[in-house]
């Protein structure tokens, strides 16, 4: 027979006015298994808590029910009191007779009757409570950051500055991401390279940051505090420990006509190359698809077709036989910062579900470019040395038409969402253009100007009021190539007039999309993506940098279209979450987790399928000789969040949520 103590609180007059607390205590005291029942004016006060402790000691209680306010208010208080009296905290629960009773009813009779029922149900539940102890998980206090754009760099630096080790994985030969391609940045028009390069170098040189560039995450196992990550280090064909970045190899490479990814196809690079002069690390990589030697080898040539780079290298750093290698790192937390790509809006792309825009001629009309290409043209380090020149004939365009929302806000052939940054960068582009081509005319076709940020509206207005950009409200139907010009068929809905402009160049503000391969990466990390592939945050308002998988955080444009300030703020937020986690050696968690009864488990794995967190794992049961008997479900306590869905789903009732077992709940229901 259990020995439960029941303490009924008056909450001053709050409960006492409507509920006859003494009657409640009396009624509960008559229940079998209740060893003590009393009422008191303020249970949460120090004397009130003392009453609890005394009752435990004197009446040798093995369970406590406090009938008072909402457990969301004081459950912790009373559990702590119980624990200090030597009782397991989880044997104490509260019945809510204030918010759910005294405050919402007028009739003293009704309220008292209901209060008794509510408390009785909790008494029956507590009789069946088991002592539980908080779950403790050791934490590997090292973080993995995936993606070395501004978001990833910021997160890595913040975590390293906080005194914890970071492994930064970047798939390209250099970190920097898209910000390294930008010329000047809104809303202040400072030079992107100037503010980014020092941070790149800092990240590279920071003793707490291990940079794995030209690498990708191969697989991830484990859970919060204890991830094991396998990283593929792609073969650079250059020995990083020997190379000093002198660049002789690039100069020697005869194969110099390869469109540069960094220059968005507007410039050329060699087969052995560093993507851009400020690259970090400043170590070249051989693009094997374009290198004469590797092409020859692929064709089965006996003799190497070229080895000019190797010959040119004074440090014997070029290594044609390098292979991909794998590194395994143990980390306690992961920050995903893989950024975005631009929607390439050329004509229909069979591999893509998005259809592209034949009417805008991107890819067929040479002087129709996208925003990043314009950034390269405007960049002092770009292919034109910062002069705005048309790709087709190198002439200075006197009339540029910018088209906003290309691919965005377009459920028909693009994506429904707004890409958030393009309004701003178009305004920036019109200004940069005017600063460089004083007699140039910039036209912008827009639907709305979305400039909601500090200083953003002022910036966008400046483009119109001071820099003379002409904003036309409407979408363009078609671009038509006519001789040297591009005829832009648009409409200005404000004046109600069709607008046909003969442009020298057209810039499409194309939509931001997540990086290719994001879904595969998300799957490895068991985080979810939205319908477009952006990583889902745990809560859109209150947990914006967490994901549904504990220990995995998100920052920057891989979560949604974001500009630099937002990306950096998110990155610092994610870093502080990581540091918060790492401030403990162990992780302590509420023991409300599911437990599988392995003897009864039929191995149907319904639970595995419904668990929103992927907490259910498979476990092989073997006999002493090592013969496999069966495979059963097992819940990883580190991952389980305690929703109980698995329990309600299990057809054979072999998984129980601690603290909310069937037995406990059935008993409570029967007592109501």
């Amino acid at each position, binding site marked *: 027979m259990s020995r439960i103590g029941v303490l009924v609180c008056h909450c001053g007059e709050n409960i006492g006015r409507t509920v006859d607390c003494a009657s409640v205590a009396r009624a509960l005291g008559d229940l079998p298994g209740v060893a003590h029942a009393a009422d008191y004016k303020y249970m949460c006060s120090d004397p009130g808590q003392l009453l609890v402790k005394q009752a435990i000691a004197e009446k040798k209680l093995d369970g406590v029910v406090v009938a008072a306010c909402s457990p969301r208010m004081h459950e912790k208080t009373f559990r702590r009191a119980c624990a200090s009296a030597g009782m397991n905290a989880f044997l104490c629960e509260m019945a809510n007779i204030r918010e759910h009773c005294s405050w919402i009813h007028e009739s003293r009779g009704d309220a008292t009757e209901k209060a008794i029922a509510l408390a009785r149900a909790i008494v029956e539940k507590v009789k069946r409570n088991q002592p539980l102890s908080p779950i403790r998980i050791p934490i590997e206090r090292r973080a993995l950051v995936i993606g070395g754009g501004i978001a990833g760099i910021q997160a890595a630096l913040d975590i390293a500055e906080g005194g914890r080790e970071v492994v930064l994985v970047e798939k390209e030969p250099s970190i920097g991401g898209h910000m390294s391609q930008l010329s000047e940045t809104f809303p202040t028009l400072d030079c992107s390279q100037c503010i980014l390069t020092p941070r790149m170098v800092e990240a590279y040189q920071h003793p707490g940051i291990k940079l794995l560039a030209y690498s990708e995450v191969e697989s991830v196992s484990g859970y919060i505090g204890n991830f094991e990550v396998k990283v593929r280090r792609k073969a650079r064909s250059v020995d990083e420990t020997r190379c000093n970045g002198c660049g002789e190899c690039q100069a020697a490479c005869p194969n110099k006509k390869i469109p540069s990814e960094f220059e968005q196809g507007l410039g050329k690079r060699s087969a052995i190359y560093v993507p851009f002069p400020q690259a970090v690390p400043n170590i070249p990589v051989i693009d094997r698809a374009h290198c004469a030697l590797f092409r020859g080898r692929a064709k089965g040539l006996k003799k190497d077709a070229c080895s000019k780079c190797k010959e040119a290298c004074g440090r014997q750093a070029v290594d044609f036989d390098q292979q991909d290698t794998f590194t395994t790192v143990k980390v306690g937390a992961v920050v995903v910062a893989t950024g975005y790509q631009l929607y390439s809006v050329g004509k229909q792309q069979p591999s893509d579900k998005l259809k592209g825009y*034949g009417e805008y001629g991107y890819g067929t009309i040479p002087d129709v470019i996208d925003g990043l290409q314009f950034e390269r043209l405007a960049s002092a380090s770009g292919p034109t040395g910062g002069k705005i020149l048309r790709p087709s004939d190198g002439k200075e365009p006197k009339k540029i038409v910018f088209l906003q929302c290309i691919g965005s806000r377009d459920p028909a052939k693009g994506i429904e969402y707004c890409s958030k940054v393009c309004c701003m960068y178009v305004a920036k582009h019109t200004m940069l253009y005017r600063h460089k081509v004083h007699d140039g005319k910039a036209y912008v076709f827009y639907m709305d100007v979305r400039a909601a940020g500090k200083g953003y509206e002022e910036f966008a207005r400046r483009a119109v009021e001071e820099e003379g950009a002409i904003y036309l409200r409407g979408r363009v139907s078609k671009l038509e190539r006519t001789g040297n010009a591009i005829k832009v068929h648009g409409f200005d809905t404000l004046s109600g007039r069709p607008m046909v402009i003969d442009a020298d160049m057209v810039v499409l503000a194309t939509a931001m999309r997540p990086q290719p391969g994001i879904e595969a990466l998300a799957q490895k990390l068991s985080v979810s993506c939205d319908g477009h592939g952006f990583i889902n945050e745990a809560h859109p308002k209150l947990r914006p940098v967490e994901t549904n998988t504990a220990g995995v955080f998100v920052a920057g444009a891989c979560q949604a279209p974001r500009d630099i300030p937002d990306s950096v703020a998110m990155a610092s937020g994610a870093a502080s979450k990581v540091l918060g986690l790492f401030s403990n050696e162990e992780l302590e968690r509420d023991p409300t987790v599911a437990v599988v009864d392995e003897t009864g488990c039929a191995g149907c794995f319904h639970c595995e399928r419904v668990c929103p967190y992927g907490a259910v794992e498979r476990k092989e049961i073997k006999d002493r000789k090592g013969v496999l008997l069966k495979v059963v479900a097992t819940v990883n306590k580190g991952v389980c969040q305690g929703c109980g869905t698995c329990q309600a789903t299990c057809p054979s009732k072999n998984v129980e949520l601690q603290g909310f077992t069937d037995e406990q709940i059935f008993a409570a229901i029967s007592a109501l």
Partner: protein
Amino acid sequence: MKLGYFPGCSLHSTAKEFDLSLKAVAGPLDVELEEIHDWSCCGSSSAHATDHLLSIALAARNLSLAEQQGLSQVMAPCAACFSRLATARHEMAHDEEQAELVRPMLARPFKNAVEVQNVVALLQGLAGRIKAKATPLTGLKVACYYGCLLVRPPEVAQFDDPEDPTSMEQVVAATGATAVRWSRRLDCCGAGFSLSRVGSVVRLGRAILEDAKASGAQAVVVACPMCHSNLDLRQSAMEARRASLGLPILFLTQLVGLALKLDPASLGLERHFVSAVGVMRALAAPAPQQLPATRG
């Protein structure tokens, strides 16, 4: 290959040369055309513009006839008929409510099992065969004009990229002629107003033909009787007080026929208002005997 054939009203009258040339090239290309027995008008833009249900029902009747005849595919050379039939097929499959209204109006069971094809897709599929049999029309530069109904609306037409189609160019390439790059391939020529609003038609047609001319084309190739009659018949009006255009408007089937060395008369080449003589001469083919011009 056997195909159901829905000529439509215009191929029996104003676009007779389309009918003639189609039938002329069918033989050499091993295509057997079986006309839908007792077909009725697809309703054209008049039904479409005034009563949507009627436009679907009239077209569906023809599909049901083809089905009864055991045909699995119907080819409608006229772009307007193609569009009407394809729309009917699409909507009968996707709009159940409307389909329930239409089905009882048909005098026979209707499973909506007949596919609708147009002449461009057909010839595109036969490009290999054309190329094999063609005497290349080397040196001839043509502008492929799609107009509206062939590619739009995309979910109905469904045979080529609606904004950057290439199917006609592929056929032209098979004949050995050169398809020029130009911009106004998809612009509407206003054929719907050919009879009721000539001013608009002339304005639209002129912009199209001037662009074709500027791109160096010697002729314009079409696959729609309405585009054809519009651009052919109205060309003189388009030229009024402007530079002469002199662009013969050829049906795609006529071009293929020329490459197959068929007799120009059998292709109806002499029936055009804008003479194709220049083109013939360029190809050193026997020029068709031109009927007295009506221009000026």
